[in-house]
């Protein structure tokens, strides 16, 4: 059976195209401040047909190796089903958003708030500053760069595009840093000569890759910009944080005479069953 599987994979690995256009680049010292923006979000109370999420948007800024900016904004969102739509109210922002389903509502809110933060930050930065964003960026400006940790991009053969390009690039420019343009302001980039990984980067200017490389030499994840690692850490909604928020909400509601446990139990039952099924 596995033999058959391998044969199928062979079909994916058929060489239909050979990437050739790899360009080497050099490390560049940053001139201005390099910022990283990232958000984290999670449902902290699930009432079955409605839920509350917590969303955090973090910003860090580095001048060389020194962190000069670190801030975090916290939001809550109440999502509920109205007819066919999910409407979400963001607090303290006040905006109301629509989503397709309840589970994803907090992700939509997070994406929106991240983009808003990037816009705000951009208006305050100078020309030498760079803003790194986790994932594709909606706001594309000369000094805004999106770094995608994962990509489902597919080559014609069916292979992972990043996998394919990494293989050829690493062989052709061994021990070097390089980029490969895939069009549409998107590149596959190797940010550290020793890194096993490449990332898809969205940017208007490939001149910034050298600065990204400067920040990608930290041993925690060699080849990935350190400011993004740091901002991910501070913006993440952690498991115990979730529990704490959940208790806080239930306690405050109880003081107002609202018992939320019944709704939550309905939802938990559903998720308990889910967990069993997928086990």
């Amino acid at each position: 059976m596995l033999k058959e599987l391998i044969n199928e994979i062979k079909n994916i690995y058929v060489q239909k195209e050979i990437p050739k256009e790899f360009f080497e680049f050099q490390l560049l010292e940053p001139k201005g401040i390099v910022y990283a923006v990232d958000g984290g979000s999670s449902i902290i109370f699930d009432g079955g047909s409605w839920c509350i999420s917590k969303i955090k948007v973090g910003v860090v800024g580095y001048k060389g190796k020194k962190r000069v900016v670190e801030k975090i904004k916290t939001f809550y969102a109440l999502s509920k089903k109205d007819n066919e739509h999910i409407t979400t109210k963001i607090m303290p922002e006040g905006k109301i958003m629509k989503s397709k389903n309840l589970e994803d509502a907090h992700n939509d809110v997070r994406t929106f708030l991240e983009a808003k933060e990037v816009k705000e930050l951009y208006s305050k930065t100078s020309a030498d500053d760079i803003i790194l964003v986790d994932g594709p960026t909606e706001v594309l400006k000369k000094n805004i760069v999106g770094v995608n940790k994962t990509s489902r991009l597919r080559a014609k053969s069916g292979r992972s595009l990043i996998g394919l390009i990494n293989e050829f690039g690493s062989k052709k420019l061994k021990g070097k840093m390089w980029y490969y343009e895939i069009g549409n302001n998107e590149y596959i980039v190797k940010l550290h000569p020793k890194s096993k990984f490449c990332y898809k980067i969205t940017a208007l200017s490939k001149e910034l890759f050298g600065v990204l490389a400067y920040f990608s030499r930290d041993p925690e994840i060699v080849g990935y910009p350190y400011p993004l690692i740091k901002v991910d850490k501070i913006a993440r909604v952690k498991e115990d944080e979730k529990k704490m928020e959940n208790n806080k909400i239930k306690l405050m509601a109880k003081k107002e005479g609202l018992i939320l446990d019944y709704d939550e139990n309905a939802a938990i039952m559903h998720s308990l069953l889910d967990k069993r099924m997928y086990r």
Partner: protein
Amino acid sequence: MIGKIVGGSVGEKVIIRIKSGERVDVGDILIAEDKETKEKFFLKVVNINISSLIARQFIEEMAGQNLESGEDFEIFDSQERFYRLCEAKVLKIKRDGKFYPPRTIPNFFTDVRKIEKEDLDFIKQEGEIPIGHLRLGTKKVSEIKINLPANKLISHHMLVVAATGKGKSNFAKVFLSGLLELGEYSAVVFDPHNEYYGGKGTKGLKHHHLNNRILYISPKAREIPGAEELKIHVEDLEPDDFFGIADLSQAQQEALSLLKKKYNENWIKHLLEEKIEKLIEEFDKKVSGVTFATLRRKMQHVLELDESGRGLVFTIEKREDTSIYNIIKQGIKQRKIIIIDTSSVGEEAEKIIASSILNKLFTSYRYAKQKDEVEFNNLPEVLVVFEEAPRVLGKEVLAKGVNVFEKIAREGRKFKIGLCAITQMPSLIPAEILSQMNTKVILGLPAPADRKAVINSSAQNISDEDVEIQILDMGEALVTSPFVKFPLPVKIFKFEEQIKRLQKDVPDIAIG
């Protein structure tokens, strides 16, 4: 603030994350103050580790690549990601102004700071004999003086241990200076190197401003004004003075007892001067000629007597005036510190001098206690200082029989007699004797066996201080005692400086 509590357990250590740029050394005392419970934890640093949030594997890889190929890595936020963790043990907990044993530990994130003068206010109330400054890590907080309480501590015995040259004798001199200041205590110091009294070039207790309360006894007294001559008439010796001290067989010991019984105070004179045949006859052949002959030789040798029965210290001449024992007894009553210079006699003679003096001291104190409570209460606590203590308290000598040193170690406390045993090799002393030495002044001890002997016999748990004890520098000590709150790290005063200090502390009184 220099750190925060990040973990630990009561049975083990507490773990403190140290703020970047802060220096902490093994041996430092830190304070963790719980803002909610208002408890103050006294912590002692026993170990320091470097740590990182980055997986070890990355660090090794990074170091390796940097070493092997000069590979260029950069660490961002290094101060928060690479840091030091220190392990500390809880010494004591202070709650509502009182001290409690370490039955709990501070909570997560409790602020940890260095110890300050105010935290140690209790030390001032702890005792009256100044011995040095608090030693924190390698630095000394010179304002904080450490005092030991004389009362009880003396009669509960002391052990001063260190490798050679680390400052044992210096400590003893400093301690005796403090004792002298108090005026209520007495001491008898056996000084095999003649270093306690002081001479032309060297500072000693005679340079103390209260030197009128020092009694110096030396074979060379004639050259020293105010000194008493160390002269012992053998008529004042008892067989007991030899037992457990001189190398005597069972038969020889019995013979000594018989001699004493028969000739009273003239027992040694007879042993030395009577014809052997006569002795055999007088004792109905209960003692062999060989035994008498051997004893005679040993006696001459141990007491360092010449053909005529005279020596530097001992003599068979009849005593005409008051004995040295009486002089010592009077000195003790007057709360004097008595220094007995044994530097010019051999080791055997020295031990007999000491044991005869101590036997008489012990007997008179015990007698007073049993017969005359008022007199006993008037007697001062007395400290017996003995250098190279294994000579009289070693496993080997004690195997030959009980001597007065062992008697004092075991029961001296009841009679207000304390022993200050000084040694380089505590491992030679039996463990039960070591544990009788309640206060231990531990200076640097490099030999593992000696450290083990001291650590195992301490009332306070100092097993975590093994490394600290090993690396103590000259004059640096760890003082453990049931009479201090916790084992105290001390930089002992240099004697020469301390006597100057004591002199200055005395108010000048205009006379006339």
